[in-house]
């Protein structure tokens, strides 16, 4: 590899088509890494007593990408990361589809696991992406953790918490 090109160690993207996890793994794979960790967030059917039929994701793209870059830089300053790939899907997703994928490579597995956990935890609170739940009873609502009461036409989810992967 010609180091003069200083290829970015990060691949960060918002996508409207299904996420190709194989490409993310390929991006982070490096002879300097002994570990690759891949996290996938997937669309779950049951949250408390609600049955989800689909999710709809929306993002404020310029800020979402800037925040993803900031998170990746933070992770690399805390762990000896080789490469990071993050893709978040937007639009309507059906059950079991992948909404977010994070791949991390590092010399040893502990660092990759820790950085991967950090990246998904922080992404969920800092990156401006929102999900709207569509439920089996025909109602729907945007999920906004911390709002006292969801005043939209749909019902608020139990306890107002965002569904956790």
């Amino acid at each position, binding site marked *: 590899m010609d180091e003069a090109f200083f290829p970015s160690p990060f691949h960060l993207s918002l996508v409207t088509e299904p996420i190709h996890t194989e490409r993310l793994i390929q991006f982070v794979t490096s002879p300097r890494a002994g570990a690759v960790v891949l996290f996938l967030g997937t669309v779950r059917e049951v949250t408390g007593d609600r049955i989800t039929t689909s999710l709809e994701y929306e993002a*404020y793209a310029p*800020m979402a990408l*800037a925040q993803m870059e900031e998170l990746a830089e933070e992770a690399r300053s805390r762990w000896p990361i080789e490469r990071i790939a993050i893709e978040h899907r937007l639009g309507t997703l059906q059950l079991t589809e992948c909404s977010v994928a994070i791949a991390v490579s590092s010399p040893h597995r502990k660092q990759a696991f820790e950085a991967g956990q950090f990246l998904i935890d922080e992404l969920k609170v800092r990156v401006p*992406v929102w999900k709207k739940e569509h439920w089996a009873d025909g109602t729907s609502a945007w999920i906004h953790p911390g709002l006292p009461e969801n005043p939209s036409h749909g019902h608020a989810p139990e306890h107002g918490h965002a569904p956790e992967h």
Partner: protein
Amino acid sequence: MTMTIDIQFFALAKELAGTEQMTIPLPESGQVGDLRRALGEAVPALIPILPHLLFALGDSCVDDATSLYPGARVVTFPPVSGG
């Protein structure tokens, strides 16, 4: 003297406002906090979530004490829920 601020909504804020964007007049040298109050007057449907709305200019969040300028393009949204 007044200035106009372009504001763009996301997620529940967009749903409650019933529009993706609007223009709000503010007194010159108005701050984000003034915009928050003006938004409640212009769009009463936003009042229940008004204290929880986050505001951003470009790619970073701004607080209520941030000064705005004529033609500023502000984005507003409730807490995030990606992943």
